Each structure stands twice: as structure tokens, then as C-alpha cells.
């Protein structure tokens, strides 16, 4: 006799069911796709906050995650990359590096063994020019082409980046992309007259000739620069690193903003596509997100980012957006953080955000907010109530019901799960007066203090980890973490051939590694199973 299978269905109340569904789908989505805008004057710890955010993101327990950090100028990327990449550097140990740091201040080093790096700027310039000439001649000989001076100018920066040996070297790839775009605006806004003239000369050439020129330059970078970049970053390809749950850091370095701009949008879109294909949550952090750089090009993309599970954090000194997209732009950010800044910026911002703030909300925190700070425990502490109503009327003031809620403010303390971070103290604005009071303080705020508008609420808080910006313990942690990650990778059978292991060669990612990665993902050995085996 056939056995009867009794199917037991758990019947949930409709509300609870809705709640679970929201938890699973909506909250996960919103939590990972938060869009933040940071505004403040220079030195008000915008970049510091971004750096903390990047570190948090790095430490969160998602298994594979992408990080795209674009910093056109500034040393945030350098300090981050020192944390992320220090242990992964080929043929160098952390201790060696520390020793070198002691010996020579700064970490751009002259390396006499490889014959790279130079003491003076002139020396660097001459060496770069020499290299460019050699490469251009070589390529010209191969392809029977005489490289145009403007194209040689473009080659200057990647080669210079190689010679100066800056650690991430990502600007090289930036240039590589820019050459592909060959945008006209790029040069028109450049201040360098010589560059403009050379570009005009290039534009006068026939179209086929321009394409030949640009193609030749690209091929130089592909065959000469990119392999060296891969080799120096410990074998990590920039895309490959993103695939394997790593970080992608873009350092503008000395490259002008107009060079970075068209590249920025291109790269952001590429990163989104990558994250989408690999199904990893992605966080994009863009420093210097002002009108001249990237923001006006990205206004459309920002709204779409939530759909692609992509978070964005943008830092700007004073956002001056075109009038037609201004309102839409402000409202496309879920969270706006205002650091120390001028009254004009404040006025401009409150004009757009004030109507969105709900002061009389019953309970000023909810779980969606909690998801944003995944690494934190939240403690709530009621302030001593100043209302006499509580004392005299058993918790309620019969005459003024509204003041009862308004005068009580709640302090929320975020205690980090990871010991490295300091606590964050948050107090919500419950009346318009409180907000005005806080807003007047904004101009005299200390660096790191911020006024946050988020999901219809406003609160005041400090950037965690401000007390000790670069604790040595934390640096150790990241290095250790990264080393663990590398060890884990090395254990995989395809990662190293026995031959390579015997010779103790540096790690090199070839097609075999990439192919086995794909095969394993499809067979379900790792997390990235996003399709069926077609064969």
C-alpha cells in the first residue's frame, strides 16, 4: 500500500508572512543598496568616513563582495590599499616593508635592484620620456606607424606610474580606458594649451588614421603595461580581484580630473555589470563627487543602482547640480550626511530635505536602519525626561500631548561587534527646533561630527573610529585577514602547479585558473553558481 504523505503546512498570519517576505527581499535589498551623499568642507572627515565605511564593508560577513573606491586625488586609496594589499605583495613580507619604511620616509621608494624609481622629478620625467620614445618606436616599427605627439602624451602617465612604482597602480588602467573612450570633452576642458593644440592636430587627421593611432597606443599598454601591473599586484588582475570578493581601488594620483571623468562612469558601469553577473553585493565609493567630475553624468545611474544591489557613497564639498535635476538628485539619496560646511550649502540642502523629514515618528529606529550597520550592536538609552508631566500625571501630560513626545529624546549607542571600531553616539531630532539648533551648530562642528538625514529622519552622530584613526592593531587585523584569504586561495588545487610550488614562484593567474574557477562555480563548489552546465 502506498504510504500517505501528510503535508504539513505552517499557516502564518498574513501580517507575519508579509513581514518575513519583507525581511528576506526588501530589507536585504535596501540594506545593500544604500546610497549615501557626504557633504562638507575640506578636512571635515568626509574621506575618513568613507574609509571607515570601506573597512566596515570589508569586514562584513558577506562572503563575496565587491568594492570600488574611486579617489581622484588624495591619499585615502593609498592608506586603504596599504591595509588590503600589504600582505599580498609579491616577494615582500610585511616586516620587510616596515623596515623599509623606517629607513626612508614615505613609501614611494627608490628600488635600486630593479632600477626603478628616482630621487628627483626631473630624473623621473626624463626616464619616462625615454621609455615612451622606445616603446613608440618599437610599436611604430611593428605596425609601420608614426605615433602622434598627443598619443605619446597619453602614454606618459601609465609609463610614469610604472616607473614610480605606486602600489595600486590602478591609474594605469584608468588611462587604458580613457584611450578607449577618446572623448573630446576630455581635452577641451584641459588647461594645458600644448595638450589642446596636439589634440586639435590629431583631430584633423582622417578617421582611420586616428583609430590606428589610438589602437597602437592601446596595444602598447596591453602588451607592456598591463602585464607588469598584474605581476606587481601579486598576480591580481583588476577584474579578477573583483570577482573573488576583493576590492578594487582606483587612485587618480597625479592624473588630472578631466582624465578621470569619462573613465569614472565607464568603470562604475563595468563594476555594476560585474557584480550583477557574479551576484555579489557591490559598494561604490566616489570621492570628489562634484559637478565637474562625475555627478551630473551619473544622476540617471544612481536611481538605477538600487535595482542592481549596488551601494553608493559619494563625497562632495558643495554640490552644485544643474537646476533641472537638482530635486531628483537630492531625493535619489537615501542618506545624506552633512559635515562641517557653510551656511549656503546648509540652506540649499534643507530646502530639499526638510519636507521629507518626519519629526513625529513614534519610534525613530526600525530594522531597515539596523541593517545598514550590520557590524554593530545597538543599545538604546532613554535620556532623563525633562517633562514634568511624567512625574505629576503618571507618564502623561493631559494638557500638552505633543510635548510629551517631543521633549523626550532617545540616545542610541552603536557598540561595534568588532573591537577595532569606536562607539558611535546618535541622538535623533524630534522637533523642528532641535533640527534648527543642530543646523546652526553645523558650521562650527568638529571634524568627524555629522548631521545625518536618512529615510525621513534626522540625527546627529560622530564618525566611529575617529578617536584613533589608524590604530596599529587594526592594521594588523587587515593584514592577517588578507593573509588568511591568500592562504585559503593557495590551498585550492588549481591555484598552483606542483612545478610552480617547487620553484616557489609568485602566484600567477592564467587561463587554467580562470577556467577551473568557472567550472567550480558551475558545479556548485563555491558560491558563484549562477547557471547550469550547458555541455
Amino acid at each position, binding site marked *: 500500500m502506498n504510504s500517505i504523505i501528510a503535508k504539513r503546512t505552517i499557516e502564518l498570519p498574513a501580517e507575519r508572512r508579509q513581514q518575513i517576505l519583507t525581511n528576506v527581499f526588501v530589507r536585504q535589498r535596501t540594506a545593500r543598496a544604500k546610497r549615501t551623499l557626504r557633504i562638507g568642507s575640506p578636512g571635515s572627515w568626509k574621506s575618513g568616513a568613507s574609509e571607515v565605511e570601506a573597512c566596515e564593508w570589508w569586514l562584513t560577513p558577506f562572503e563575496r563582495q565587491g568594492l570600488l573606491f574611486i579617489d581622484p586625488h588624495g591619499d585615502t586609496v593609498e592608506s586603504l590599499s596599504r591595509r588590503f594589499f600589504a600582505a599580498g605583495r609579491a616577494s615582500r613580507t610585511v616586516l620587510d616593508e616596515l623596515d623599509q619604511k623606517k629607513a626612508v620616509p614615505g613609501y614611494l621608494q627608490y628600488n635600486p635592484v630593479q632600477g626603478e624609481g628616482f630621487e628627483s622629478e626631473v630624473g623621473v620625467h626624463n626616464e619616462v620620456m625615454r621609455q615612451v620614445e622606445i616603446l613608440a618606436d618599437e610599436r611604430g616599427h611593428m605596425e609601420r606607424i608614426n605615433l602622434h605627439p598627443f598619443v605619446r602624451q597619453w602614454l606618459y602617465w601609465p609609463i610614469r606610474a610604472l616607473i614610480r612604482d605606486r602600489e595600486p597602480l590602478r591609474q594605469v588602467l584608468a588611462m587604458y580606458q580613457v584611450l578607449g573612450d577618446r572623448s573630446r570633452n576630455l581635452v577641451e576642458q584641459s588647461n594645458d594649451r600644448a595638450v589642446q593644440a596636439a589634440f586639435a592636430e590629431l583631430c584633423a587627421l582622417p578617421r582611420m588614421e586616428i583609430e590606428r593611432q589610438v589602437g597602437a597606443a592601446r596595444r602598447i599598454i596591453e602588451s607592456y603595461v598591463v602585464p607588469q601591473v598584474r605581476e606587481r599586484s601579486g598576480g591580481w588582475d583588476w577584474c579578477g580581484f573583483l570577482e573573488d570578493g576583493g576590492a578594487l581601488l582606483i587612485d587618480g594620483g597625479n592624473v588630472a580630473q578631466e582624465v578621470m571623468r569619462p573613465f569614472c562612469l565607464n568603470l562604475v558601469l563595468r563594476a555594476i555589470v560585474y557584480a550583477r553577473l557574479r551576484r555579489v553585493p557591490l559598494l561604490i565609493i566616489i570621492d570628489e563627487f562634484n559637478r565637474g567630475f562625475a555627478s551630473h553624468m551619473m544622476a540617471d545611474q544612481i536611481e538605477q543602482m538600487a535595482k542592481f544591489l549596488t551601494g553608493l557613497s559619494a563625497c562632495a564639498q558643495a554640490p552644485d547640480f544643474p537646476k533641472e535635476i537638482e530635486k531628483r538628485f537630492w531625493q535619489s539619496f537615501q542618506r545624506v550626511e552633512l559635515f562641517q560646511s557653510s551656511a549656503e550649502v546648509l540652506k540649499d540642502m534643507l530646502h530639499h530635505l526638510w519636507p521629507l523629514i518626519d519629526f513625529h515618528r513614534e519610534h525613530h529606529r526600525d530594522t531597515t536602519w539596523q541593517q545598514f550597520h550590520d557590524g554593530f550592536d545597538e543599545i538604546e538609552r532613554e535620556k532623563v525626561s525633562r517633562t514634568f508631566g511624567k512625574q505629576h500625571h503618571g507618564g502623561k501630560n493631559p494638557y500638552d500631548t505633543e510635548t510629551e513626545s517631543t521633549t523626550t529624546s532617545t540616545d542610541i549607542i552603536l557598540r561595534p561587534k568588532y573591537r577595532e571600531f569606536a562607539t558611535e553616539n546618535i541622538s535623533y531630532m524630534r522637533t523642528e527646533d532641535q533640527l534648527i539648533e543642530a543646523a546652526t551648530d553645523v558650521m562650527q562642528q568638529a571634524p568627524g561630527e555629522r548631521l545625518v538625514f536618512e529615510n525621513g529622519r534626522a540625527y546627529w552622530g560622530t564618525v566611529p573610529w575617529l578617536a584613533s584613526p589608524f590604530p596599529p592593531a587594526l592594521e594588523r587585523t587587515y593584514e592577517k585577514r588578507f593573509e588568511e584569504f591568500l592562504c585559503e586561495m593557495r590551498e585550492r588545487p588549481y591555484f598552483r602547479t606542483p612545478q610552480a610550488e617547487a620553484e616557489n614562484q609568485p602566484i600567477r593567474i592564467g*587561463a587554467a585558473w580562470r577556467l577551473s574557477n568557472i567550472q567550480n562555480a558551475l558545479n556548485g563548489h563555491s558560491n558563484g553558481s549562477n*547557471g547550469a552546465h*550547458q555541455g
Partner: protein
Amino acid sequence: MTAIQHLGYPGWQAAFRWAEKQVTYGNIKVLGKVFGSKDKMVNVYGWQCKADQLVHEAELSDILVHFEADGIPWCRGEDVDSEFRADADVREYGHVFHLELDRDTERRRALARRLQVYAKGSDFVLFVAPHDRRIKQVREIGSFLGDQLLLTTYAKASKDPFGKNVWEDIYGNKCSL
């Protein structure tokens, strides 16, 4: 003929008879004759190509027939991706593999130009060379292809392209499709 044999005909005679029949029906047409693997003169059927490419096409069929037998989608000739213009395209694991069969007739510079085309995309390139010496050469020339280039010899590929450790990348790491 070896190609048709792979499709399930027990001997070359049966396969030959089948091919003859197909010619009379007009399904395929004879393009020419080449010396096969055992110094036998064999017919070449298929899409139209130049006379000096006949051997190349015959060898390519010997490899592609394994993909056909495994039900892996492939295309050759005019159907391949026009951007790269490989000898054949194979789809596997949701990725495109460009199959490039080399007979050691191209010179270094021409080969370099050919490989540079693949650097435009990030697809895999399956490069089949006639012998190990050529593989060594290709490894040097195509080093910029990094994680795209997979190499093997014709002997291995025509026997079984899915065999264990048949393919290797530019660093010498072995892998299999």
C-alpha cells in the same frame, strides 16, 4: 572521413557510402581531396573554402566532431563572431571559446597580429598548434593574453579535447575542458 566515422559509423566504408549518398542527394558537396592521417586520399566535404585551406578545414572538423558528439554548440566559417573571426566558436559554461587551429604556416608577426584581435575581448582562446615547439612560440608571442589563452597540440585535441590535462595556459598550468 575520419570526422564522419566519429559520428557513429563503425568503419570508414560505411561512412564513405553515407557521404556518397549525401552528395547525390545534394546535401553536401565535395570540395576537394587531401591526404588524411594515414596517407590516404580522402574527400573533404563542407562549407566552401580555398584550396590551400582544405587540410586546415579537415583537421578542424576532426576536433569539432568531439564537440558535436557531446552536444556542445559550435559554429565555424562565416557564422563565427565577426569581431574576432576565429576558426570556430564553441559555447561552454556560458562562455565563448574561440578555437584557433594553427598549422605553423603563419609567421611570428602575422600570428601576433592574429592574437591581438582576441585581446579586444575577454573570451577564452583555444589555440591548437601542430607541435610543442610552436606552443612555446605562441606562449611568448601571446603572453599579453594572460588569462585567456589555452594551448594544446593537434594530436591531443583531435584525440580527445576533453581529456584530463589536455590544455595548458601560458604559465604551463594544466587544465581540462
